[in-house]
């Protein structure tokens, strides 16, 4: 299990961005994840999908970084959603009750569709 961490930000325009996270996220990689999320938000995104499809591990520090991003987008009416089909990682969100804070989707496409809809409603 190598677990090399990666976080890549893609701004899709119209206030929408995707941050793809790969490998193992923890205390050491938290600053990189923070930077990737900041790149999305500083680029004007209010609706952010964090794609954990290729993430193999997260911890409470990761949750803290995600919550920091939520605190930035919410006052502007935005949303941060999660794509994750790993039952163990999803369980971490459930244990901490953060599945009530984030909408969690099995596939990135579903998450993006949801955020596009939310963005459209917000604009309308």
């Amino acid at each position, binding site marked *: 299990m190598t677990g090399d961490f990666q976080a890549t930000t893609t701004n899709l325009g119209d206030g929408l961005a995707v941050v793809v996270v790969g490998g*193992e996220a923890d205390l050491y990689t938290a600053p990189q994840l923070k930077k990737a999320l900041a790149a999305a938000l500083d680029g004007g995104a209010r609706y952010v999908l964090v794609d954990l499809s290729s993430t193999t591990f997260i911890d409470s520090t990761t949750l803290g970084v995600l919550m920091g991003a939520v605190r930035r987008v919410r006052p502007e009416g935005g949303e941060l959603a999660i794509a994750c089909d790993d039952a163990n990682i999803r369980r971490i969100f459930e244990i901490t009750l953060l599945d009530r804070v984030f909408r969690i989707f099995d596939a990135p496409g579903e998450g993006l569709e949801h955020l596009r809809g939310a963005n459209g409603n917000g604009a309308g």
Partner: protein
Amino acid sequence: MTPDALLEIGSVAREIGVTPSTLRSWERRYGVVEPHRGNRGERLYDAGQIEVLRRIQTDIRLGARAAAAHEAAAGRPERQSIRVELPPGSEAPRLARLAVDAILASTPEQRFAFFARLVAVELVSNAVLHGRPADPIALEIRLDLQTARLRVHNTGRTLSLRQLRTRSGRRGWGLEIVDALASSWTIESGPLGTTVTVCLPATDAGFTDGDWGTPRPEAV
């Protein structure tokens, strides 16, 4: 071990949370820890002996009979165990995962392995954030047939369970995660630092949906 590192029975008893007469009784009945003797014949304990006594007391708190706890301390056969010292920096959680991977390499219980890694990371991250920056963090993992026991020790300030909960509340969800996953756990904090011990069921069945064990935190 220098002479000044030896502690008298009263200090050791306070450190691990028993009375001096309990320590004398354990010594007489089980003979697992034979203390040094000072000039006046008084009992003196070195750091290794204190650690053994701490393990015994933790096992008893977790429900073991005194005799069984002493048997374990004396080297009861177990499936596997590992003890590593981790540098007290942000790379420590990754090294903790490697230690868990090393001991669980052959387990088919993948869900258990995932959550054992998670608990190790949470405990070690906590030690990185709250321990003394210059001192290594000790991680010990013991795997028996039904249970995995993870123990993380760091030097530094004395912490109570209440303080740790408060800190956790400010910083995140680490303690809540451990609390939800553990079948039992203890925090021992004293002059020598803080030790958190967590027992997990060593099977995937112990982590099925809606079955997260019954946490029984105990503060010392």
